[in-house]
């Protein structure tokens, strides 16, 4: 993604990401099957929030990658990409929130904020790298 394939930090990042994604898929399946039944109480909240946990863990995985990546330039580009994506995500969600409040626009589900953010990181990263060519 960010550096040479032999980079051990990237290897560890990819491995952790795959583990997190496997848990994500497993938890989605668990939640979907569980909610075929009528579940109430704390268990319902726990099951409903379960698929979000591996997604939240991705933030820690990125944090670990930033701590382990030896290439300061690559770290710099990723941090800049994340900052741009944070700004764009907050701008979009805030603007959309007011649009929903005052005019008829489709509802934007909150669980889509995270993929939106990572999509924007993916867009920002190559654009920022072009700056340094």
């Amino acid at each position, binding site marked *: 993604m*960010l*550096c*040479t394939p032999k*980079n051990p930090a990237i290897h560890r990042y990819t491995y952790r990401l795959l583990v997190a994604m496997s848990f994500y898929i497993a938890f989605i399946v668990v939640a979907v099957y569980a909610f075929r039944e009528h579940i109430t109480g704390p268990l319902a909240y726990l099951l409903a929030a379960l698929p979000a946990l591996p997604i939240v863990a991705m933030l820690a995985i990125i944090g670990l990658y930033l701590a382990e990546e*030896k*290439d*300061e*330039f*690559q770290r*710099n580009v990723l941090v800049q990409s994340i900052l741009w994506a944070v700004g764009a995500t907050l701008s979009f969600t805030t603007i959309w929130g007011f649009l929903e409040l005052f005019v008829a626009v489709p509802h934007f589900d909150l669980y889509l904020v995270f993929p939106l953010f990572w999509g924007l990181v993916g867009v920002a990263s190559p654009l920022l*790298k072009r*700056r*340094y*060519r």
Partner: protein
Amino acid sequence: MKNQLRVLRAQMGWSQADLADRLEVSRQSINAIETGKYDPSLPLAFKLARLFETPIEQIFSDEE
């Protein structure tokens, strides 16, 4: 910040990838430093100075 990295690298007969391997960074990093678009941290600048056996001031100058 200006630098003599390209010249020093050419004197050693190294490609950007060779230098990147020696510093354990990506080739993109070397390119960004050489073109003056990215200023390395002090630790990386010292690493470069040690590698080329030359003082940091002879690699980097703070003129625009």
